[in-house]
């Protein structure tokens, strides 16, 4: 019997048992729905992560450290409470782990390499307070070195083109900061902030003065000069606001700190740490692989010189592995629902074989091969799998389209980003896999049908 005839007969049998067919398909549909949602959510999350990384990290970017354990997730051997030999290069990360820090010589060594450019150590500039324009109100905010490797978007003013840094006296401020300053009455409108002078004051504790210094101060300035010696030292840095960066839903850095030129960041950071063990010690450096160099090869070359690097791709991998785990969990539920529906198919098809004993007997008497009978029942199961897959996928797509805007709003994903992204190919693939699973489930009843003895089957009561 030809396959097309078997498929047609299978479809007809299912049509004549509509209720049973639809109910069994719905059972598969539940599994298909869950799987379709998990595929769509995985795809959506991955695209979102891509956008996120694309707008925050240059694909050529490398983060280089001296202590490889930072990337391995495990505790550094340097962490712990045990006593150990003092090493001036060991310091703390923001999360409190002890790691081997990078020295200025090592940073210079990296900067001298031909396969790296834009080498910027992780300066930690800090500002005690700042004032804007003629106002005497003092504000405090985080400052960070301007990252020339990412394209940003300016709300007011203009940003330097990609790859170019700020001039030594320019800063970029988040748009939201301007809003606060308008509320505080420092400026009239947000646009006014562009071109405004900002004076940042950094301070550092004074080192204990020596007896000679004290004596000299007393001799020249009296008691007031001695008091001034124990005051924290301060230094002013003056800038002009060049631009306000637009608040983007996918931007990670720009929304939270004032970006100052790299040179100023270094100066500020060195000023506040001078004389402390943190002076010219860095967790790591940000760098770009030179145009045309494969970041992975640069990473390997760095490893030979005992530098540990993470590429943009590595970072992507970290984010994706989280997405994959979450997707796996949802997928797991779908698979469980499918397993339940597999038993549904087996059960339905067994009943169908029993109900149609006569029909099977007749077909076998008319010379249909056992294989043909078996295929007929497996095709029926495949049709059920097809229907279930299409029903589940269709419901998932419709609900996804309906609820995507709401989900985007609730999760704050930003305009144009959707959590559920349906692509035809994975959905078609899912339906095909469901058909195969259904056929597999239909194998047991189909075998029973194939082995039926036509004489027994046609025996009248």
């Amino acid at each position, binding site marked *: *019997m*030809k396959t097309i*005839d078997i498929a047609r*007969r299978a479809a*007809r*049998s299912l049509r*004549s048992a509509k209720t049973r067919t639809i109910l069994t398909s719905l059972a598969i549909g539940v599994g298909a729905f869950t799987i379709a949602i998990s595929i769509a959510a995985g795809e959506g999350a991955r695209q979102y992560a891509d956008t996120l990384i694309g707008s925050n990290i240059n694909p050529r970017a490398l983060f280089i450290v001296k202590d490889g354990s930072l990337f391995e997730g495990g505790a550094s051997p340097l962490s712990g409470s045990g006593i150990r030999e003092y090493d001036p290069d060991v310091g703390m990360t923001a999360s409190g782990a002890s790691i081997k820090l990078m020295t200025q010589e090592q940073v210079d060594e990296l900067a001298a390499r031909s396969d790296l450019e834009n080498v910027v150590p992780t300066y930690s500039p800090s500002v005690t307070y700042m004032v804007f324009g003629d106002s005497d109100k003092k504000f405090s905010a985080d400052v960070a070195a301007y990252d020339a490797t990412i394209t940003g978007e300016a709300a007011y003013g203009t940003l330097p083109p990609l790859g170019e840094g700020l001039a030594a006296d320019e800063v970029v401020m988040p748009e939201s900061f301007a809003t606060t300053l308008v509320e505080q009455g420092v400026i009239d409108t947000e646009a006014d902030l562009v071109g405004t002078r900002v004076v940042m004051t950094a301070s550092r504790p004074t080192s204990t003065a020596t007896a000679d210094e004290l004596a000299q101060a007393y001799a020249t300035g009296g008691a007031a000069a001695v008091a001034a010696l124990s005051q924290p030292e301060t230094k002013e840095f003056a800038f002009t606001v060049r631009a306000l960066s637009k608040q983007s839903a996918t931007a990670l850095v720009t929304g939270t700190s004032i970006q100052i030129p790299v040179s100023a960041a270094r100066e500020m950071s060195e000023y506040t740490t001078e004389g402390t063990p943190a002076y010219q010690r860095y967790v790591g450096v940000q760098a770009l692989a030179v145009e045309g160099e494969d970041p992975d090869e640069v990473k390997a070359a760095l490893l030979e010189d005992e530098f540990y690097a993470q590429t943009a791709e590595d970072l992507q991998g970290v984010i994706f592995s989280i997405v994959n785990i979450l997707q796996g969990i949802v997928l797991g539920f779908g698979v469980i629902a499918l397993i339940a529906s597999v038993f549904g198919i087996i059960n339905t098809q067994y009943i169908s074989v029993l109900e149609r004993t*006569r*029909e099977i*007997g*007749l*077909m*076998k*008497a*008319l*010379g*249909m*091969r056992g294989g*043909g009978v078996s295929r007929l029942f497996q095709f029926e199961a495949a049709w059920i799998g097809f229907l279930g897959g299409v029903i589940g996928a269709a419901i998932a797509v419709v609900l996804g389209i309906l609820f995507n805007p709401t989900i985007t709003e609730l999760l704050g994903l930003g305009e144009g980003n959707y959590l559920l992204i349906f692509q035809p190919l994975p959905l078609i693939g899912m339906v095909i896999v469901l058909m195969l699973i259904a056929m597999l489930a239909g194998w047991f009843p189909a075998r029973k049908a194939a082995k039926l003895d*036509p*004489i027994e089957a*046609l025996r*009248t009561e």
Partner: protein
Amino acid sequence: MIEVKNLTKTYGKKQSSFKALDDVSFTIPDGASVAIVGKSGSGKSTLMHAMSGLDRPEVGEVVIDGTNILKLKNKAVDRFRSEKIGFIFQAFFVQANETAYDNVALPLEIADIAGRDRRKRVETALAVVDLTDKIKSKAGNLSGGQKQRLAIARAIVNKPSIIFADEPTGNLDSATGEKIEELLFELNKKGGSTLIIVTHDHDLASKCDIQIRIKDGKIDTIVQAKTSKVKKTPKKAGVKL
């Protein structure tokens, strides 16, 4: 020609064994109408199953057109049935939820007849049994007589050389049954296919060229109508006619 030689079918083992057919031999010429008559349990159905290749007794031969079908492989027997045999059953066994067309097309699909040929053959077969106007009707909506005519159309659609009819009128009232009988004999005479009717109805049996009477698995008598060409093969002598 159908030659049945020393056919023996045993059910069960050793002490509890029971011979449904016991050394049955006879010959049927092409185109004859034959009645296999016997009470229920006499072995007449077992004989029909063996002759049509549905059952495969261990002892004896069923030689049809020179081939012993009991020695054929499963696949070959299935093809033999799909190409050479038509079946008509007491309970019709038409698929109630399918159309008359699809019911009649089933043997053609099984025999891998191409689509173009198929429609023509189905239409011809339905015309023979006078069901042309019911081609699109669901078989379940037909009357008993129409169902059996549909079953006959299904049996003849593939132009088999032998048609087995198992109590073809058993589920019908006598008037309808008579029409079915007429149709069967007409097809036998005109179409030239051998008709083998299994029945316990002596009136029906008497209309056949040959009556093979079975009792307790053995041939009781073989009665031939005056025009018949067949005789019982003498058991021991093995002489064939």
